[in-house]
């Protein structure tokens, strides 16, 4: 009953006007103004998506959002919405539905998103846009949605090798794809619109770099748990928009203040940790409480790493291709390992936690190698098995024992 009522409400664009005020009051207790920008951004995006004033483009997390904005669309990210459902502790509603259709061994974020689609929690897409960056699950999930909604699915096949041939292959696809989408939506591809998107993207990137620089400070000024939440959310959904610039500017100022005050996010920072993987469990859990309670600060996470160079308006497709190919999750694991080692050094960490999300083969499959290389460099690495979206795969007692043992070992 509640589920149906919420589904009915969120499909009404006016609902977003109504909830914005109360949410602003509720979240005012957070000292960080960036958080409210995130909430407002989400509300505005989904209001637009349900109102369908612009083409609604469901997009996978690693498709550069600059493309979607450049095409004049509203991006909807099923994976991000799935993590929000977990955050509100209602992912079970959707998992139950999805599990009647697909295997429970698949990534819970896609299972939740499928359940949301089945329950009418998602706006009707005009088209789907995904890339092969990161994982098989994304490729096939969007293919499945295309059948479910009977809408076109545009797909970027990202080559494994970042070389001359691979780059040409990707650039050609980008050109074809933008042409085809522009024809489908009737919104012509206008370079001046993309130029503005690129400018905003580069400005957001500049603030992100400043934030990452500030986060090197001791004690750690900003918790990794929050960076892995709305910080990463904004990175996936908003780059190329005005709110993204506002968000990262606000976050940068907030962290700068903390650094100037010498204030860490923990009362006493005993250990510095690096979080490996783009996600964390989003449902209520005790992982970060246990770490905080033991003085272990998650000072940085690979998800926040700015892996891409500035976009260049003079060669936009080449530049977007470069952004996609620069992702350290593409290509051999060595790239991710090198990146982890650099981050471990830059942020002077004492240890790392690899969150092995059940259903994420590409990440779990690299955990042993990552841990082995980090250990060889004197950085202990704990492989924490868990699930980012499905609380039924979470065992608080066992997780606490493992985390405490790991932190104890760091001492």
């Amino acid at each position, binding site marked *: 009953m509640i589920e149906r009522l919420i589904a009915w409400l969120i499909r009404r664009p006016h609902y977003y006007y109504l909830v914005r005020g109360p949410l602003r009051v509720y979240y005012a207790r957070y000292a960080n103004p960036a958080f409210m920008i995130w909430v407002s951004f989400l509300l505005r995006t989904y209001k637009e998506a349900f109102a369908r004033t612009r083409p609604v483009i469901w997009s996978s997390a690693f498709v550069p959002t600059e493309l979607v904005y450049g095409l004049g669309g509203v991006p909807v990210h099923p994976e991000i919405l799935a993590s929000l459902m977990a955050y509100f502790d209602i992912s079970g509603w959707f998992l139950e539905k999805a599990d009647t*259709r*697909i*295997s429970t*061994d*698949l*990534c819970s974020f896609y299972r939740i998103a499928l359940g949301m689609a089945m329950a009418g929690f998602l706006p009707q897409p005009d088209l789907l846009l995904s890339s*092969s960056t990161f*994982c*098989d*699950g994304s*490729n*096939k*999930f969007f*293919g*499945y949605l295309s*059948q479910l909604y009977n809408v076109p699915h545009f*797909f970027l*096949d990202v*080559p*494994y*090798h970042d070389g001359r*041939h*691979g780059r040409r*292959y990707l650039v*050609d*696809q980008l050109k074809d794809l933008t042409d085809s989408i522009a024809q489908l939506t009737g919104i012509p591809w206008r370079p001046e619109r993309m130029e503005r998107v690129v400018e905003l993207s580069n400005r957001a990137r500049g603030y992100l770099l400043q934030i990452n620089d500030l986060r090197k400070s001791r004690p750690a000024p900003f918790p990794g748990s929050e960076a892995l939440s709305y910080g990463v959310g904004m990175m996936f959904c908003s780059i190329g928009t005005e709110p993204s610039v506002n968000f990262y500017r606000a976050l940068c100022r907030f962290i700068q203040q903390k650094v100037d005050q010498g204030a860490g996010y923990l009362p006493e920072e005993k250990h510095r940790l690096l979080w490996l993987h783009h996600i964390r469990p989003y449902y209520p859990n005790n992982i970060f409480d246990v770490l905080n309670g033991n003085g272990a600060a998650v000072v940085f996470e690979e998800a926040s790493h700015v892996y891409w160079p500035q976009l260049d308006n003079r060669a936009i497709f080449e530049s977007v291709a470069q952004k996609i190919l620069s992702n350290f999750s593409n290509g*051999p*694991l*060595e790239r991710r390992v090198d990146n982890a080692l650099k981050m471990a050094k830059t942020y002077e960490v004492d240890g790392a936690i690899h969150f*092995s999300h*059940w*259903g994420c*083969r*590409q990440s*779990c*499959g*690299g*955990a*042993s*190698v990552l841990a*082995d*290389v980090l250990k060889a460099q004197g950085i202990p690495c704990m492989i924490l*098995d868990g699930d980012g979206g499905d609380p039924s795969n979470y065992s608080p007692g066992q997780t606490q024992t493992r985390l405490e043992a790991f932190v104890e070992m760091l001492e």
Partner: protein
Amino acid sequence: MAEDRTILTDLRETIERYMGSLSVREAPVIGWCCSYVPVEILESAGLVPLRLLPPPPAEMGDAYLNPNFCGYVRAIMGEGLARAYPFLSGLVVMNTCDGMRRLFDAWSHFHDLSFVHLMDLPRITTPGAVVYFREEIERLIDRVSSHFGVSISTETMASCFRASNRTHTLLQQVQDLMGQGRLDLTDYEAIELLKATGILARETCHPLLKRVINESPMEGDRRGVPILLTGSMLENPEIVSMIEAGGGWVVAQDLCVAGRRSENPISLTEDPLMALARHYLLRPPCARMQDSQRRIDYVSNLVRSYHVRGVIYYVLKFCDTFLYEAPVLKQTLDHMGIPMLIIESEYRGGWGGGIQTRIQAFLEMLNGAGSPDQREATR
């Protein structure tokens, strides 16, 4: 029946002898583990390609790859670390899926084999993708040539393509006979035979295939519910025996180890690398390819061509691409009035009574369904 057993016994002995001979071969043996690997390139370089189909269990692999990984990948990793292939000089891994990609990474890191090559495989089949795949084949040639100090001439390549086309013709004949019920083998033996073509050298497997073809009767007297077996990696065809025991007849297969291969031979009249790229990339697709509709059309055509009455979809646990595809294919088959049974299983064989019961129930349901003519035909 005695002859059937002889063929299976011969096949097993031949494989055993062949595997034993690999240790004393001068030519380097190169392992491969995906049917998209263009083995003709390895053959053209004078190397010995060997499809790795390790037996379960995979405990050793479990220590290096997460337990939520495909059992086939874990088995390869485990067997590699356990030195089950001491004669191996190299490994070619295809970027087929996350499992294979990470197998390459883990093997490269934890194993001391000096030649481990990952070959990219496009997920789409546009002309640009074919060109990119051609370049990947060229990269394989460069790596093989520089590592093993060999060169590949156009003539050798053409000769290897011709040999591959002969295998193609023989396999096609075997599969046609299987569909006509004229193969003098059980379905289990037939799948074992098709599987063996990835293991044995062409000169060893061609006589076996020819013998099976020559010994086939003129008229087929095979009866049973016509079944299409489709899905991912099937190491142990015990499931086929269960289908046969339940009154089913596997008239067609679309599996990584049998059946799923190009419908056409390699063209000998164009740029050889382009011909090879097209041959592999445009073949009936694996579920990892992006365009599911192509695969669904292919499976639907098999259903129609072989008058299939039920489809058994076998998928290894944690094989994301096939798991996602299952409901989509099922929906299409439902519209065609063809029931589909999904069997999700570990790479361990030795399936318990649960799977046997499900297969039996499925076949009984099929026997009860259908028109009186169809039921009569399957008796």
